[in-house]
């Protein structure tokens, strides 16, 4: 490695109103390394890298690239200096072809598009060279998420780069696709490129990096060589204290069937089939997980169960009662709790206070209301009690919930749903947007609920979450349940194959 760093970030600061996203960050990237940036959600990884690729302008500080101080005003400037970034949210226009996306913004605005065959040829050549399997004429919206990501990576390569920044690329991939991506990163480095890999998954970071920098609260807290550290140490650096990676679970046979789904089918909002004949049972005292790459019908399944999406056929039975197609209020009243995937859309009302949000489903019931009037004192007491028990960080119960961080909003949703004393709890993405500390807490809470005899269905794209607390894991693919596995990390390969839709060849991985 050279003595002069390839890229040096010096004391960068960036704030968005009251939020300090970068609090004096310094970081050095060497030429030809894979440098991982590890940190919890909200640590400031994306903002930092967006400043390097010209998307965001720093308030203060220096970026020195290839020995020169640079100040990009747009991503185009960065591309010109051969820096490219694949964003967490893809920058692909869905109704255009792959090739059209690549030439977007290139050449003079008034030029006629005429060299498409050359562009197609160049894309095919690059695609073959890195085995990316990208077809230039495909329309982006017809591609799966994994394919779209390869399209994004190839786009950056198409523009020609020396430094590639990947922002949480593995969040949307199956384990097999992840393997493929990690080995691609190795190939790119062999070709003389430098890679910055942003992730919050310790195992992946340990597998590919040369060096790892850990971010917390807008700062780089440490940079370590991969051989000189371990997952536990990294986790401690991320959170700032020790983390228990294993949760104790009492072995207990499950009880009676609480929720039974029979041959359920429904369509997505687009009218396309999304859930195709799903059957499953959830018993009292067990947590059943549903794994799968996002977009395989999990969203629609949870909406259909909770009454938010019409059911085409099949039945949903809760405690022996048919609740198929009932409206959400009726379903809720049958001791059904729902911790939704999109909490802003289905979980809370942002401008309302914490108190008002805690009684969203029960505002007209005793003791929260009497004679059509809200009982403010009781509601306030109830909310304060939940805030305390679930350690929701907030000023008071009258604050608008919009002012809370995502993690604390989630804790309040969890608190509210559990306070309703449910028999069945439907959870979609338990730990979305919340930090490791809070995640540990809500997972332990879920286990306590299980042990007290509640039935829980946990839909998640985070395998760690599923392995940590589930009693069994179902895999969903293209709207169907493809198989069931025990929560055994040793059978990850099988799980991955199922997630990729390979039903017939279990255990053939590698």
């Amino acid at each position: 490695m050279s003595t002069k760093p390839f890229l040096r970030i010096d004391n960068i600061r960036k704030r968005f109103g009251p939020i300090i996203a970068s609090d004096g960050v310094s970081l050095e990237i060497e030429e030809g390394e894979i440098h991982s940036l590890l940190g919890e959600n909200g640590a400031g990884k994306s903002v930092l890298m967006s400043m390097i690729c010209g998307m965001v302008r720093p308030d203060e500080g220096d970026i020195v690239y290839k020995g020169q101080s640079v100040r990009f005003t747009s991503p185009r400037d960065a591309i010109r200096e051969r820096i490219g970034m694949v964003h967490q949210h893809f920058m692909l226009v869905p109704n255009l072809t792959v090739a059209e996306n690549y030439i977007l913004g290139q050449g003079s605005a008034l030029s006629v598009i005429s060299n498409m065959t050359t562009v197609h040829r160049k894309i095919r050549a690059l695609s073959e060279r890195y085995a990316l399997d990208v077809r230039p004429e495909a329309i982006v919206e017809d591609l799966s998420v994994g394919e779209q990501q390869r399209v994004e990576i190839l786009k950056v390569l198409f523009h020609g780069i020396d430094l590639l920044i990947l922002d949480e690329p593995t969040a949307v991939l199956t384990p097999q696709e992840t393997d493929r991506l990690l080995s691609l990163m190795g190939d790119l480095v062999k070709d003389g490129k430098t890679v910055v890999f942003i992730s919050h998954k310790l195992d992946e970071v340990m597998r590919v990096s040369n060096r790892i920098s850990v971010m917390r609260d807008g700062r780089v807290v440490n940079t370590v060589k991969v051989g000189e550290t371990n997952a536990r140490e990294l986790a401690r650096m991320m959170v700032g204290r020790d983390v228990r990676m294993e949760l104790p679970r009492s072995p207990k046979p499950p009880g009676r069937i609480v929720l039974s789904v029979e041959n359920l089918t429904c369509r997505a909002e687009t009218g396309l089939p999304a859930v195709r004949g799903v059957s499953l049972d959830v018993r009292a005292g067990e947590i059943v997980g549903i794994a799968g790459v996002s977009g395989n019908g999990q969203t629609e399944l949870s909406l259909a169960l909770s009454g938010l999406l019409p059911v085409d056929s099949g039945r949903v039975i809760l405690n022996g009662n048919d609740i198929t197609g009932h409206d959400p209020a009726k379903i809720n009243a049958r001791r059904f709790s729902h911790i939704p995937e999109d909490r802003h859309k289905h979980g809370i009302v942002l401008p309302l206070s914490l108190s008002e949000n805690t009684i969203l489903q029960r505002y007209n019931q005793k003791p929260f209301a009497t004679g059509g009037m809200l009982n403010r004192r009781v509601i306030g007491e109830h909310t304060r009690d939940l805030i305390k028990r679930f350690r929701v960080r907030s000023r008071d119960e009258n604050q608008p919930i919009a002012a809370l961080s995502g993690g604390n909003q989630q804790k309040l949703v969890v608190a509210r749903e559990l306070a309703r004393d449910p028999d069945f709890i439907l959870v979609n993405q338990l730990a979305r947007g919340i930090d490791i500390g809070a995640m540990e807490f809500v997972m332990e809470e879920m286990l306590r609920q299980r042990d007290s005899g509640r039935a829980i269905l946990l839909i998640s794209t985070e395998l760690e979450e599923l392995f940590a607390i589930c009693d069994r894991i179902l895999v969903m693919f293209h709207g169907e349940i493809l198989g069931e596995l025990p929560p055994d990390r040793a059978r990850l390969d099988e799980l991955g194959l199922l997630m990729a839709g390979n039903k017939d060849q279990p255990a053939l991985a590698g």
Partner: protein
Amino acid sequence: MDDMISLTFLAALASAAWRLATPLIFASIGEVFSERAGVLNIGLEGTMLVGAFCGFAAAAATGNIPLGLLAGVAGGMLFGLVFAFFTITIKADQIVVGAALNLLGMGLTAFLFRTYYVSTGKGIEIAQPVHIPWLSDLPFLGEAFFRQNLIVYSTVLVAILAALVLYRTSFGLTLRAVGEHPKAVDVAGRSVVGYRYAAVLVGTGLAGLGGAFLTLGHSNQFVEGITSGRGFIALAVVVFARWSPIGAFFVSLLFGLFYALQLMLQAQASIVVPYQVLQALPYIMTIVTLVALRGKGAAPSKLGQPYEMR
């Protein structure tokens, strides 16, 4: 009743349909550009009125029709600039600003017309049909399609040109992207704001031209509210046409046919339907279309939403 299906009737119907479709063709193709870039301009009606008035005023002063058309385009674009400033730069709600511009367009043109022209009551020379050798002399076809003025003929050119620009140029590609994923355009180094301004100006310029046609190529006078809802019908045309310029051309023709039918049926003594019912035909068809094609369909996904820069 017999002459309803005669060839003469059909030829006259076709001829009138194209002529009556012309303002819709200009306005709806313009709106396709605007909406493809994510800007919904419901102020088309007001914009067309301004175009009609400016065209009339310029032609009345100079006696020059091309200059009048140019003035119509300029008037429309000026209006568009106001719309763009409020919706794109200030990020005000597009519907509210569009509605305000409709009212402004109606009030302003009525006021100016009453102040300066109404007492004169003078008409202007309008564009005359152009005789195309051979084609115009064809039996039936000549009468149906080739006895129009140049402005009507130019609609074909405008439609083809619009499609070429939208689908075959870098500008068009970027424009389509701006309405779907503006951030991607931003990241690719093009100005979303710039493209939206350009799209609105193309849209309002064409709407102004459509308005100017009404006074310079159709009637020889400005009348208050001369557009009589064509701006709103053009909005429906865009939806029906699935945001395609060529589609907008043909759908406009269809609406032109309703207008023509309505006019010609009124002239038929044998028809006993009250004329108000016939007059309502194009508007009823608009509602029917919008109901039949409800839902999102192919609408640009960021239609109506301002772009928040990083």
